[in-house]
């Protein structure tokens, strides 16, 4: 267990000053997520263009530093990516967090990798894994046009 790894500067920064914390205008995909046990909530908005590329990504919600940083970093990373790459990325991220795998994606920049990896400290805190994964599950839901609210109790 290592609090320093969990609360890295990057996480604290994104947690305190989340990027993309707003509702994207003219979004065409969205989904809500909820962790009923702790009350964390997130609403993800995406604007995909005709080429299935993410033009805009944002979120609304409240939660702990981990969940805010995770949503913040996630929305940064998906912007400009094609939907299929986003799906790859989600899978890669979830496997890193939940199965402690190394990142596989080779279409991420070093900077992007650093951002993603900053969330890996959560691996050692099983009760906090859901905080980190909620927005990612919700993103999947948005992409797939799922109507049901995402509920982490179901997923992790």
């Amino acid at each position, binding site marked *: 267990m290592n609090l320093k790894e969990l609360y890295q500067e990057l996480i604290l920064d994104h947690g305190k000053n989340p990027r993309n914390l707003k509702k994207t205008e003219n979004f065409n995909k969205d989904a809500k997520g*909820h962790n*009923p*046990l702790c009350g964390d909530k997130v609403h993800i908005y995406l604007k995909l263009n005709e080429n299935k590329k993410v033009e805009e990504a944002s979120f609304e919600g409240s939660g702990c530093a981990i969940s805010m940083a995770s949503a913040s970093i996630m929305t940064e990373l998906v912007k400009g990516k094609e939907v299929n790459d986003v799906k790859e990325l989600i899978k890669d991220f979830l496997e890193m967090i939940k199965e402690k795998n190394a990142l596989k994606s080779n279409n991420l920049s070093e900077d992007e990798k650093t951002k993603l990896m900053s969330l890996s400290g959560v691996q050692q*805190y*099983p*009760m*906090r894994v859901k905080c980190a994964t909620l927005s990612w599950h919700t993103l999947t839901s948005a992409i797939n046009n799922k109507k049901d609210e995402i*509920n982490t*109790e*179901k997923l992790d």
Partner: protein
Amino acid sequence: MNINKIKSEFPIFSKKVHNNDLVYLDSANSSQKPLVVVDRIYDFYTKEFSNIGRSVHYLAVAATNLYENTRVSVQKHINAKDKDEIVFTKGATEAINLVANTYGNKNLNEGDEVLITELEHHSNYVPWHYLRKSKGVKIEFAEVNNDGEVTLESIEKKITSKTKMIAVTHLSNVTGAILPIKEITQLAHSKGIPVLVDGCQGAPHLNLDMQDLDCDFYAISCHKMYGPTGLGILYAKKKWLEELPPYQGGGGMIGEVKKNDISYGDLPNKYEAGTMATAQVIAFEESIKFLNKLGMQNIIKHEKELMEYGRETLMKNNSVKLIGNPKNQGAVLSFTIEGIHPHDIATILDEDGVAIRAGHHCCQVLHDKFGLPATARASFGVYNTKDDIDKLNASINKCKKIFDKK
């Protein structure tokens, strides 16, 4: 199996009852507990205790993991498809009430029929009776034959177009009859009827395979399965748990709670309202390990031998009348003695340390059918030996001596 070794794992057998060794023949009522289970409870409370699920501190996280581990172990033990199909309750009685209440309120209407059997324990009758009172549901009883069995045919005979639920025991706690669940389920499903199995007596004595039985609901009491008191299990196919409304309401089972409305949580939380029996669930893991260490096949073989020896011994005893003679019989032997009431038998046997049960065993309908106000019942567990049966028989002879005095 080395029964004396197994017996030594149950500390209670080092106790004397009225200066005699304990001959415990009341396992159908509740089984004794192996030391591993009791130790686990002790260790959990003294070294690891915390409530589960709701706190993020160390002890809570560890306890939550242990609790969920048991769910997975139960899933594997009964071959359920998904761990979310395992709901912890306070006993089989609550498990059956949960189904009768939720399924009944959602899917049963006036004139609909619930088909149970004449063998059923009150716990698999009273909950359905409530729906008779509240909704005008009808209850039909599949007949028991003279051997104390309920056959597939006797079930089939009572199925009508109105039958909306079949609720049957896996193993009778009076006659020991094992019902053909797989065949009943096939028949029922061919007519679109769900099946609930009261597995109280099935679970400790039979191999459980939910995929094979294919029943919709299966109720278990952990205290009859070498586990702690105050704990039961409802197995239910996921579609039912998703589709049916929740049962008790409270902490932990909710989604979102607003002043004007409430949404419910997902499986399995939806059916586990309030603080659960944490220590008991965690200790039940050891009961499952204990059973698997012995091996269900070995247990079944051992208990079959005991049964056969028991039947033989008591049949040779002229004044004893066995109740039922099922072709397929589990670890239960009920009997009467001409001229001696079962309560008197139980009191006299007790003096020799032989613990049996006397009464209607929560099966009044069956006793009415057989015209008996009460029976005496010897039931077996992994720790019983042929010697226990010899002692039972000797004590029965003593009963006769006392009563034939005049």
